[in-house]
């Protein structure tokens, strides 16, 4: 029995080691992840809360209040009060605080992280006399589920598009199905368009089903137009499928394709604001996030659903998504190969 196990073990190891692309990827992936995460969440460790400090100055003075000396909290200067309120409402800030003569703070009662940040603030404030006043944010507070729903739908869309297209195309190439198609009058662009259209329809149906089921059961917030939201979904889906096609343009190993798709999808999931806002992250990280289609999809979807944004409001993100899609499709079509040759 051991002999047979060893024979299969050895064969699999040889296969793995001789597949240079996959081998290189398996070595590179952890290195990229470690350095990438160190870059994104570098410094003194990952902060747990993001607190806006309402003040006119662009620099925060930690000596102003003991709360500002707390570790693992990102303090972000906020100069515009209304902007600060909106960020608290939309879970982009856990808390908004004003120090000085009239100490005051604003918290979203629907925010779990806001609750803990508030406890920490009040503890710190007790050390200096407990002057801090709680203030209400006008309007309906946005629940976390309202905020996170677009993130979950977007993430699901991302995985479905990237893996459902990228991985499948690589499998088609590996098992010779693409070669079979190549021998027909089918052109690469026709094949690509068919893949995009197929995934688009599937994703739209699945996303619509999940959205409306959630909407009915949890009474999620929808302040904008469904048509605009549909447009965001269509444009976003096309950009994701295009990205999947670009990754799959030449790869012949499913393992390598899986690695590359993970390399793309994980940073997007972390940096695009699926689960938490990147408010307070460094400008380089925020800039990087803007290069990801998922960031634009989520920003637009949240703007439509939570703020009632119209098409002109989200036009910059739509334009960016369209440009990204065109770039991915052009590169994908340029690099596309039917077979491994």
């Amino acid at each position: 029995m051991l002999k047979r196990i060893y024979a299969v073990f050895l064969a699999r190891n040889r296969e793995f080691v001789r597949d240079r692309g996959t081998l290189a990827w398996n070595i590179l992936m952890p290195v990229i992840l470690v350095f990438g995460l160190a870059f994104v969440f570098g410094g003194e460790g990952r902060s747990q809360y993001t607190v806006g400090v309402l003040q006119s100055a662009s620099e925060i003075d930690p000596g102003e209040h003991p709360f500002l000396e707390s570790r693992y909290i990102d303090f972000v200067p906020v100069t515009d009060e209304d902007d600060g309120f909106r960020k608290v409402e939309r879970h982009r800030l856990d808390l908004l605080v004003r120090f000085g003569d009239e100490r005051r703070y604003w918290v979203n009662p629907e925010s779990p992280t806001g609750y803990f940040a508030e406890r920490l603030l009040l503890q710190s404030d007790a050390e200096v006399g407990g002057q801090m006043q709680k203030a209400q944010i006008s309007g309906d507070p946005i629940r976390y589920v309202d905020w996170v729903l677009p993130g979950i739908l977007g993430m699901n869309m991302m995985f479905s598009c990237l893996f459902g297209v990228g991985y499948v195309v690589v499998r088609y190439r590996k098992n010779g199905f693409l070669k079979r198609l190549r021998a027909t009058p089918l052109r690469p662009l026709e094949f690509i368009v068919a893949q995009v259209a197929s995934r688009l329809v599937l994703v739209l149906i699945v996303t619509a089903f999940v959205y409306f089921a959630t909407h009915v059961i949890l009474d999620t917030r929808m302040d904008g137009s469904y048509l605009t939201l549909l447009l965001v979904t269509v444009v976003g889906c096309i950009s994701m499928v295009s990205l999947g096609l670009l990754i799959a343009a030449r790869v012949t190993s499913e393992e390598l394709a899986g690695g590359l798709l993970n390399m793309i999808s994980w940073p997007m999931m972390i940096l695009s604001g699926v689960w938490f806002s990147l408010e307070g992250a460094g400008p380089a990280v925020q800039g990087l996030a803007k290069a990801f289609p998922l960031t634009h999809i989520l920003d637009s979807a949240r703007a439509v659903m939570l703020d009632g944004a119209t098409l002109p409001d989200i036009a910059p993100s739509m334009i960016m998504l369209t440009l990204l899609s065109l770039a991915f499709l052009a590169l994908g079509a340029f690099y596309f190969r039917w077979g491994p040759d």
Partner: protein
Amino acid sequence: MQIALEARNLVKQYPGVVAVNGVSFKVTEGTCFGLLGPNGAGKTTTVEIIEGVTPATAGEVYYFGEPAGRRFREEAGIQFQNTALQDFLTVRETLEMFQQLYDRHADLERIIEDCSLGELLHRDNRKLSGGQRQRLFLAVALVNEPRLVFLDEPTTGLDPQARRNFWTLVQRIQANGTTIILTTHYMDEAHVLCDEIAIMDAGKIIASGAPDALLRNRYDGLVIELPLEDLSRDLDGIDHVVYENQGIVEIMSTDVSASLEALAPRVGSLNRIKIRQPNLEDLFLDLTGHSLRP
């Protein structure tokens, strides 16, 4: 009859290997042309260059006098040696999908009947046997009513019964006037199906022509076969070409009586001696000096 296909000086070079080395041939419309040779001879690479799925290092392909292009893709039907179909699709769905890729459409029901797929139409592609898959691959190659059909090792892995059924099918297609290019390492298959053949070895064509003409030109006599173990003495002094292949000694003889007379004192018994016509396998052995490599 027109020249349906012409390959001119095809070359395919991989790092350190010349897989196809200056291959040229012409195929007349309505005929079955066989590209023969052992595994690794360069047949599949040659055919894939012609089909346009493998880029050539050098050389040109002409289809009815024009460089092979869009019209060729529309009018050619291809059965690949190694290919896959989409999972979860039934046989009928697969045929319909491929048919939609062409402007030319054959009568699907006739193809289904010709390829004996009637009872398999609603079966998942993944659940077909080897022979059934080959019949489906052939049917896929026919969905566009092709003027030219490529069959790449179509019967490899099939049992003898399935092979013979497949031959009948190919003969039926050819009877409709379709040009066929067949690659195979089965010499009997080529002899049965092909009007003309080209024998390849190590990336080159080493002989070409009609099978019977090639044999007639090369041989004037019969082959005597006897088991090597029946020989009691060596064959020195027998003035004929001698091969030893898998324990069988083959002697090309223009005078069978004289040969048997010369053999008699060298063999224990004549009971296991066979006399037959020379075939393409003999020709291949003769031309290359080695047997068909597995």
